């Protein structure tokens, strides 16, 4: 019998409350504190890059977006009034910048081939291994599955993709997703539902040719 893994995040709404630490950090940034700049980068550079990468599926574009995001954050920190959390504020800028980048890409760079060398530390498998105890078979299986999911994610409607990424990868609550995307809670629910469904169908199409990677409900032990 299939086991239903239910995640009832009843405490998620508490996360939407503005953290006093966010306001303190914003004040410190306005005052020009060096530690505040460091702290902001330390806290948000990886999530911002990861979100941009998942939205655009291109490391180079994600790097560009991350730079633009932090430039805007540093320049507009004076406009942050604490009406939302710093995280949702920064993620909203990231979503907008990724959207601009995608539009720019379709206009100008669609047929360009990048000449940049890959950084020696990006995409290197040694740093993405999550479990030292994995067998080579499991490792390859995981890699292929991750690539399939990333590719399927890139093919679904960008509006649905942003909602699914914010909910399932960035782990924001529905309320936070609504704040980031500046849409109503009902629209968030609808987009997540349709995004997941589109993703499931995309994966099913791919997995018909690769049965070993089929989504398998976990059985109760």
């Amino acid at each position, binding site marked *: 019998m299939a086991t239903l893994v239910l995640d009832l995040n009843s405490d998620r709404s508490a996360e939407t409350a503005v953290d006093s630490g966010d306001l303190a950090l914003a004040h410190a940034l306005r005052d020009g504190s*060096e530690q505040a700049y460091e702290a902001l980068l330390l806290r948000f550079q990886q999530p911002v890059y990861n979100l941009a990468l998942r939205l655009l599926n291109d490391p180079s574009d994600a790097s560009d977006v991350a730079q633009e995001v932090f430039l805007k954050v540093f*320049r507009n920190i004076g406009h942050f009034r604490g009406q939302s959390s710093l995280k949702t504020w920064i993620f909203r800028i990231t979503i907008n910048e990724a959207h601009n980048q995608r539009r720019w890409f379709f206009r100008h760079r669609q047929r360009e081939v990048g000449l940049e060398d890959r950084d020696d530390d990006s995409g290197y498998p040694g740093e993405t291994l999550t479990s030292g105890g994995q067998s080579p078979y499991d490792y390859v299986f995981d890699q292929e599955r991750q690539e399939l999911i990333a590719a399927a994610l890139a093919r679904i409607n960008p509006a649905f993709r942003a909602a699914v990424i914010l909910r399932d990868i960035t782990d924001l609550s529905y309320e936070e997703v609504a704040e980031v995307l500046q849409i109503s809670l009902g629209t968030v629910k609808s987009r997540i539902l349709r995004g997941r469904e589109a993703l499931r169908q995309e994966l099913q199409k791919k997995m018909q040719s690769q049965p070993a990677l089929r989504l398998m409900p976990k059985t109760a032990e």
Partner: protein
Amino acid sequence: MSCETVRNILSGFLDQPMGEPERTRVTNHLAACRECAAHLAELSELRTYLRSLPVAPMPRRLRTELQVIASREKARAAATRTLSLTLHSWIGTCRLAIDNMMRPMALPFAGGLLSALLLFGLIVPVLGFRPAVRNDVPTVLYTAATLVEVAPLGISDDEAVVELSVDAKGQATDYTVQRGEVTPEMQADLTKMMFFARFTPATSFGQPTNGKVLISFRRVHYVVRG
């Protein structure tokens, strides 16, 4: 509850709390419908996979670039805090921009100027410029009066050196004997000569002016043979 209704709320069922009556209805449906239960299991598995996607490591270059952006923005924010700091920063920026613009030009500019001077110095003497007008007035400050023509009149046998005063019209107006002795005959001859001789007046800055001409009278003997 129909399968379609259940599938429309399954995503929310996974994530969010639901009222107890609705939750019970969905659970009952899932217990009875294998397809919807499998659908929910797939969605749950999909979500697990999405959550297990690895965090892509940031490129090292991006870390450095973000540090640079932070540092630059911090300096910019500090520079615009007061009016004097803004002005100071603006002046510094302008000075830096001018330096950056002029420094690469300094060496080529100096080299070009020296080369031009050297070439000019070498070429100009070779060209040998000549005046286009023959009787052009020299542009020196002062030119002396000169004799153009003397009347063909005989002069007594005495030798003498006479200084003639020539006016701006080229006429001799007076004379002074510098050497020798002037006899009454010679005085008469000199008066005739002054009357008929023509002179080029002296010039000062190109304008005719009074001047002096020194004339030497000398005896000449012609021996005719045959």
